[in-house]
């Protein structure tokens, strides 16, 4: 007997889908902004060998890049409360995204900073610019511009990875899918639709980030 697909039963829950989508986007957005901040701090510490932060960031980067996001999330959500740190599912999800993305962007941005031609720094020095000024105006913008595509890819990977946050009951898009299929008993259709939403989100987020990067870091035409 042929199976009759029933996608309408998924779309009945479109409000749940929209809500989950928005929360996934919000989690990604907050995580990206804070994660980039961590990444810039980490990259500076590593590139300038600021003891002891360079070592701390090196350990942090290796620890995060060599363990699964899901385990990091569980460690934060289940592990921290047992140390007396109270944390809800959204705080845990955001913290996990920031910690994860921060580690990857540390390495990505560091590579960009270290690729700065020596002459650029010498030119800035000869203009009597200080270390912080040189970093802020001469080193960081071209470095970020150069690695921006890599950062965009990483953000998309992290956004897709947030689907496991459903496991700590953060009500994002995958949580919405689980909820819907428990009501309509149409697991395949539900996950198919939600997968399609993720796919469109991945394309859209990448486009928006690339455009934003070019606006913010690159050439501003007046």
């Amino acid at each position, binding site marked *: 007997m042929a199976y009759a697909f029933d996608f309408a039963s998924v779309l009945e829950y479109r409000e749940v889908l929209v809500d989950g989508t928005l929360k996934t986007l919000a989690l990604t957005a907050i995580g990206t902004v804070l994660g980039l901040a961590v990444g810039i701090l980490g990259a500076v510490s590593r590139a300038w060998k600021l003891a002891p932060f360079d070592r701390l960031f090196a350990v942090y980067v290796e620890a995060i890049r060599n363990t699964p996001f899901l385990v990091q999330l*569980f460690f934060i959500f289940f592990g921290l409360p047992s140390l007396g740190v109270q944390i809800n599912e959204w705080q845990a999800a955001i913290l996990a995204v920031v910690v994860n993305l921060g580690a990857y962007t540390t390495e990505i941005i560091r590579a960009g900073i270290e690729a700065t031609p020596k002459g650029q720094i010498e030119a800035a020095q000869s203009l009597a610019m200080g270390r912080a000024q040189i970093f802020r105006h001469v080193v960081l913008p071209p470095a970020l511009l150069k690695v921006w595509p890599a950062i965009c890819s990483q953000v998309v990977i992290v956004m897709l990875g947030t689907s496991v946050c459903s496991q700590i009951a953060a009500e994002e898009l995958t949580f919405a899918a689980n909820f819907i299929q428990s009501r309509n008993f149409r697991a395949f259709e539900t996950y198919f639709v939600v997968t399609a939403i993720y796919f469109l989100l991945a394309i859209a987020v990448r486009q928006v980030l690339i455009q934003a990067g070019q606006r913010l870091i690159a050439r501003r035409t007046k």
Partner: protein
Amino acid sequence: MNDISTWDIARNLLDGALWTIGLSLTAFVLGGIAGLLLLFARIARNPLARRLAQGYIEVFQGTPLLMQLFIIFFGGSLIGLEISPWLAAAIGLTLFTSAYLGEIWRGCVESIPKGQWEASASLALTHVEQMRYVILPQALRIAIAPTVGFSVQVVKGTAVTSIIGFVELTKTGSMLANATYQPFLVFGFVALGYFALCYPLSAYSRILERKIHGSRAH
């Protein structure tokens, strides 16, 4: 609640880790074979083959691994197949791995300078001969480091299969954390387990990369 000793936790986690290793190896080997097919489709002269391979790669790189696993798991039962968590995990991770490896390897093939194609064409080699004798041997050398690097992503990806009920390291950890009320200790061990598996691969990939860049510079 302390009838489960730290030793018991470690022993159970080791059992789980064996399944993580088994799944990683399966996905990596099968995914590698599928990835090779994808690579050939991706660089084929037939535009349809190229387009299909590209679509496949975009879909698997553009959707969450967890969703891929759910669809395989529930899709199988739709067509009347009873798919075990292990089988769903193996299929899902294989497809996921093949998409990434196919794309990584395509990058390696395309990084071979155009002059190599032109030079070998001027020697009257056919397309297949060019690939076999000139392009692939060079691409292979470049491909080793990122391939080893990606194996880390495969190992980490296996953790997601715990969600569809495959009992590997993370799932074992979740069960133990519930049973012992010691999540910090248990997930700490779990993290250490993944680190022990992944760090050597990361470090090796970095060494390989340095070697290739070093030998190119001179």
